C-alpha cells in the first residue's frame, strides 16, 4: 500500500512538473522601446494570448538606452528577445550578421503579402539589401517626424492680428520652414496667461540619435541626398550641397532664435515635457506621441493641433517606425512566427491602430474613413508618402555617431561653419565605407 502511495505521489509530482514546464515554455518575450505605443502593443497582445495560449512577456527599454541595450543583445547572441521591434536602421546589420531570420519562406507559406503593407514601410522596415525582395521584418509601427502646436494659442484673435501685422501672413499651420521660424520667433519670450513661453522644442540630443533625426527633418525638406543616385557611396556635392548647407544653417538659426533656455540636449521626452508644461508653442516629435497628446488632460482635447513636416524645396519627412523581426538566437522561433502571422491579420492591424499603434497595413491606411479616425491621421498619411530614412548600412551606428558629433558641434557648440560640418561628415563616412570595403 505504501509503495502504491509513493508511486502515485511521484506520478502526481511528475505531472505537475511536466505541465508546469510546458506552461513555462509557452511564452514569448517581445523587446521594444518603452513608450506609448508599447503599452498599446501589450494591450493588443492579450488577444494573442487568449487565442494561442502563449503568454507574452515584454522587455521595454527607454529610448536613450534602446539601441545600446538591444544591439548589444544581438551582438552577443542573447536569447532574451524572441521577437524584436528594432529600429529601421538596424536592418542592414541584423540581416548581414544573421541576427534576424529571413521571413520570405514563412510569408510565402502563410500567404502574407508585402503588397498588403504601405510600400514606404516595406522598403524601410523590412528589406535588405534595399530595394530587394529579401524580407527580414514585418512592418509593425509606421512613424514619421511631425509637428504639434498649440491650436488654442494660434486661435487667439489678438495674437493672430499682431502676427499678421508683423509677418504679413496668417498665424496658421506653417506651409514652409520660413513660416515655421516666424511662428517660433513670435512666441519666443512672449507672455501668455502670465507665463513666459517660447517658440518651439526641436531635437538637439547628443548621445543617441536625437539631433540627427531633428536636423534631417530640415535637410530632407531642402532636398538632401546621402549619395549620388548613380554612383553609390559618392557623397561629395550631395551631403555638402548648397541646399544642405542652407538647411543646416536654418536649423541652427531655429536653435538660436526659438527654443527654451537649456534646450541643448533634448529629444522626444524633453520636447514632450516642454510642450505639455505649456512652455512652447510647437514641438517636433514622432507621430507615435500624437495619440497621447490628443488625450492629454492639459494640452489635449482640442487645445493641440498637428501638422506634417513643412516643405521647403520638396515635401519630405524623417522616417521613424520599426518592423517586427524574429531573433535568430531564440529557442522559440516557431512561436514567434506564430505571433507574426497573428499580427499580420487585417482585424489585428485595425485594432492596433484603434489602440494607439500606427499600423502600416493597407487594410487600415487605405480605408476611406482613415483620415477621419484621428486628428493626426490625415497628416500621417501625407508624411508616410514622403518619408526618408538615415543610412541603413551595417555600419549605421558609426555613420550616425559621426553625424551626431559634427551636427552638434556646429548647431549647439557653435563650432565652425555648416559647410565645414558637412565636409567633415563626408570625411568620416568615407573612412567608414572604406573600412567596410564599400569604397
Amino acid at each position: 500500500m505504501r509503495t502504491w502511495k509513493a508511486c502515485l505521489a511521484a506520478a502526481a509530482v511528475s505531472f505537475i512538473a511536466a505541465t508546469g514546464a510546458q506552461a513555462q515554455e509557452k511564452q514569448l518575450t517581445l523587446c521594444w522601446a518603452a513608450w506609448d505605443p508599447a503599452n498599446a502593443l501589450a494591450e493588443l497582445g492579450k488577444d494573442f494570448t487568449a487565442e494561442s495560449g502563449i503568454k507574452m512577456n515584454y522587455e521595454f527599454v527607454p529610448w536613450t538606452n534602446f539601441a545600446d541595450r538591444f544591439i548589444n543583445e544581438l551582438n552577443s547572441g542573447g536569447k532574451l528577445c524572441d521577437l524584436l521591434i528594432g529600429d529601421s536602421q538596424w536592418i542592414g546589420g541584423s540581416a548581414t550578421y544573421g541576427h534576424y531570420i529571413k521571413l520570405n519562406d514563412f510569408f510565402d507559406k502563410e500567404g502574407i503579402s508585402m503588397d498588403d503593407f504601405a510600400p514606404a514601410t516595406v522598403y524601410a522596415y523590412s528589406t535588405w539589401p534595399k530595394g530587394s525582395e529579401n524580407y527580414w521584418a514585418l512592418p509593425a509601427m509606421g512613424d514619421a517626424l511631425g509637428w504639434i502646436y498649440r491650436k488654442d494659442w494660434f486661435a487667439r484673435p489678438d495674437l493672430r492680428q499682431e502676427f499678421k501685422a508683423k509677418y504679413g501672413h496668417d498665424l496658421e499651420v506653417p506651409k514652409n520652414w520660413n513660416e515655421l521660424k516666424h511662428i517660433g520667433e513670435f512666441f519666443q519670450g512672449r507672455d501668455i496667461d502670465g507665463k513666459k513661453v517660447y517658440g518651439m522644442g526641436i531635437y538637439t540630443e547628443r548621445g543617441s540619435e536625437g539631433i540627427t533625426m531633428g536636423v534631417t527633418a530640415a535637410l530632407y525638406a531642402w532636398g538632401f541626398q546621402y549619395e549620388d543616385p548613380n554612383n553609390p557611396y559618392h557623397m561629395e556635392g550631395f551631403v555638402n550641397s548648397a541646399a544642405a548647407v542652407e538647411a543646416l544653417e536654418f536649423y541652427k538659426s531655429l536653435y538660436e532664435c526659438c527654443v527654451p533656455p537649456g534646450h541643448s540636449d533634448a529629444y522626444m521626452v524633453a520636447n514632450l515635457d516642454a510642450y505639455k508644461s505649456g512652455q512652447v508653442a510647437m514641438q517636433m516629435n514622432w507621430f507615435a506621441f500624437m495619440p497621447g497628446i490628443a488625450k492629454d488632460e492639459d494640452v489635449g482635447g482640442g487645445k493641440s493641433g498637428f501638422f506634417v513636416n513643412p516643405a521647403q524645396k520638396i515635401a519630405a519627412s524623417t522616417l521613424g517606425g520599426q518592423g517586427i523581426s524574429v531573433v535568430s538566437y531564440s529557442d522559440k522561433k516557431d512561436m514567434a512566427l506564430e505571433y507574426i502571422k497573428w499580427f499580420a491579420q487585417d482585424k489585428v492591424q485595425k485594432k492596433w491602430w484603434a489602440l494607439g499603434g500606427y499600423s502600416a497595413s493597407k487594410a487600415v491606411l487605405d480605408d476611406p474613413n482613415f483620415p477621419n479616425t484621428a486628428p493626426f491621421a490625415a497628416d500621417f498619411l501625407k508624411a508616410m508618402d514622403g518619408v526618408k530614412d538615415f543610412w541603413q548600412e551595417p555600419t549605421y551606428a558609426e555613420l550616425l555617431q559621426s553625424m551626431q558629433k559634427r551636427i552638434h558641434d556646429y548647431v549647439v557648440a557653435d563650432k565652425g561653419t555648416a559647410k565645414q560640418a558637412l565636409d567633415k561628415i563626408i570625411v568620416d563616412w568615407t573612412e567608414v565605407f572604406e573600412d567596410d570595403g564599400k569604397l
Partner: protein
Amino acid sequence: MTDRTAASIADRAAAATPAGLTRRVRGLSDRAIAWLFIAPTIVLLLAINIFPLIWTVYLSFTNYRANRPGRVIDWVGTRNYERLLGSEDVWEYMQATAHFVSWTMIIQVILGLGLALLINKNFKGAGFWTTIILIPMMLSPAVVGTFWTYLYQPQTGIFSYIINAFVEVGPIDMIGSPGLAPWSIIIVDTWMWTPYIMLLSLAGLRSIPDYLYEAAEIDRANTWQKFWHITLPRVMPFLMLAVLFRGIENFKMFDMVVELTSGGPGSITELASINLKREAFEKWRTGYASAFAVILFVTVFGLGNIYVKALNRVKQ
C-alpha cells in the same frame, strides 16, 4: 598574546592538519610552499589583468570589430595608432581631459586644504561639519551627475537662481553653453571630491607634532611663516598622494560627465574615456578603441610614474 598561548594555538593547528597533507607538505621547500600560497593570486592576476592587457595590445594592431564575430581579423600594423595620433578630434578629447583634470586638481587642493585647516581648529561642532562635508563623496557619481542636471536647469534650477540673486544675468545655461559647460563638470567634481582632499590633508595636519609650532612661536614666526615652513611641507606628501589618486580617477572620468552633459555641447566635454566608450561600444571599432586604450594607459602610467618619483623626493 603570550608566547605560550601562541605556541599552543600552533600546536593545535598542527594537530588538526590531516596526516596525508602533512606528509605531502613536509616534502616541499619553504620557497615551494610560498609559491603554492601565492599561485592562485598570480593566476588570477594573469587571467584578469595581464592577459586582457596583452590581448588589447594585440587587438590594437588589427581591424577587429566585436560585433562581427565571423569576420577575418586583419593585421593593420600601426594604422590605428597613426589615425589616432593624426586625428584633430582625439587631440581635442585629450585637451578636454587635461583641462578637466588640471582645474579640478588645482581648485580641489586649494579648497580641500583650506577646509582641512578650518576643521583642524577643532571648533565646537567640527565633527558635525566634517560629516556634512563628507556626504557628497559618499554618493554615486551617476546619481550626482543626474541630480546636478536639475540643479543646473536654467529656468528652474537652484544654481541659476542663486547666481541671479547676486547678479541679475537671466537664466544661465551651464550645460548647453560652450563656454560654461567645461566649468559645469569641474564644479560638480569639485563639490563631490573636495572632501576627499580635505580628509587626507586633515590626516597630514594632525600628524604634525605641536613642538614644531611651539619652537616657531619662540622664534617669533608669524602665521604665514608657520604655514609656509612647517604646515605646507609636512602636509605636502599627503596632498600629493591625494592628487595622485584623484588625478588618475579624473583621467578616467566617465559616469558623472555622461549623466551631466553626455560629452556635449558638441564634443566640448567629451573626455577621452567617453570617446573611448563610443568607439568601442557604439561604433564597435574594437581595434581602434584598443589602440586608444593603450595610448591612454601609457599616458596615465607614464605620468603616474613621474609623479610617484616626485612624491618620493618630497617625502625624503
